[in-house]
């Protein structure tokens, strides 16, 4: 009883706070100083057409490194939670129909290609490593859908993940040595704005992030698929 009263009082207080914020706040008419700097200088300093990508990969590169680390820790935690209960396989899932398995074979290369398109064009169009990684994981998921007991190349996934993670850090250090700071993209040529080979190291970094995220998410889905049924 007291607990419910407490919850209602808490929510009402929060509601009043948010409502008063809504009534008193004034919409921005112009960009603050820092975002205005980013918007004006991205084209000449970084060479990327997508300002959000420039902010994520270069200006705020450390944040993204931390983000990738958090995702890695989450994937390891999920593997740890699920691996301790490894039991002999007693799953008998209903097999999929011919239509789904054939469509999967036809769609799988195209989905992976689309994921690669999303992360190699991260500096020109919306999207980037995280979205492209999710699309690639979708392709692997479709593989699992068509054949739930498919044997996955676990080693290959882990290999891709660790190689791309290490390369990401190495490129960051290269930026510190050859350029101006850690994760600086200007040690490769900036190229012409709006073309595929532009923005220095951003496409390379985003491709590595995409491969790493795709491998991690595929690993998570594979672990979830393998744990045996309960109850």
């Amino acid at each position: 009883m007291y607990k419910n009263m407490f919850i209602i009082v808490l929510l009402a207080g929060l509601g009043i706070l948010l409502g008063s914020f809504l009534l008193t706040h004034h919409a921005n008419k112009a960009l603050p100083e820092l975002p205005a700097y980013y918007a004006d200088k991205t084209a000449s300093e970084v060479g990327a057409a997508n300002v959000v990508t420039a902010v994520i990969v270069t200006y705020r590169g450390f944040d993204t490194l931390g983000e990738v680390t958090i995702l890695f820790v989450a994937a390891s935690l999920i593997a740890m939670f699920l691996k301790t209960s490894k039991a002999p396989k007693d799953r008998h899932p209903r097999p999929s129909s011919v239509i789904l398995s054939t469509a999967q074979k036809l769609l799988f290369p195209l989905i992976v290609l689309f994921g690669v398109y999303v992360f190699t064009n991260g500096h020109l169009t919306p999207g980037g490593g995280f979205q492209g990684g999710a699309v690639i994981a979708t392709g692997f998921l479709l593989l699992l859908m068509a054949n739930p007991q498919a044997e996955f190349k676990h080693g290959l996934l882990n290999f891709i993940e660790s190689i791309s993670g290490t390369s990401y850090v190495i490129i960051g250090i290269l930026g510190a040595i050859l350029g101006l700071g850690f994760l600086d993209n200007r040690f490769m040529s900036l190229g012409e704005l709006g073309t595929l080979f532009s923005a220095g190291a951003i496409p390379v970094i985003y491709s590595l992030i995409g491969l790493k995220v795709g491998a991690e998410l595929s690993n998570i889905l594979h672990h979830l698929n393998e744990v045996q049924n309960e109850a």
Partner: protein
Amino acid sequence: MEYLTLQNIGLVTGFLLILIGLYGALTQKNILRIIVAFTIFDAGLNLVIVALSYIKGRVAPIIDQTTGITNLSEKFVDPVPQALVLTSIVIGVGVTGVMLTFALRMFKTRQSLDINDFKETKW
């Protein structure tokens, strides 16, 4: 009528989602439903941040033929909160995955999903 802008609608929707999600997370008994309420809370929070970065009459911060390359700071919306929200969404799915697998482990040890059955670490 001047309150009826895109930004304010986004803010109101986001605030209501935050309140609904918080209410659900505090009152539900089933662990899985608590996690569902948490994802709704997450969506509302992200919506509020993106709505705050919107400026009326401006376009998405991506340079192409329609924007030109001069005076960009007077044409673009704020890119920094968008980058922040992108990070937040990716971390959100990692957190949700960990919560779900933990709920699965809890269910396996106790065959129950009720939050009141797990009281050992309560203080």
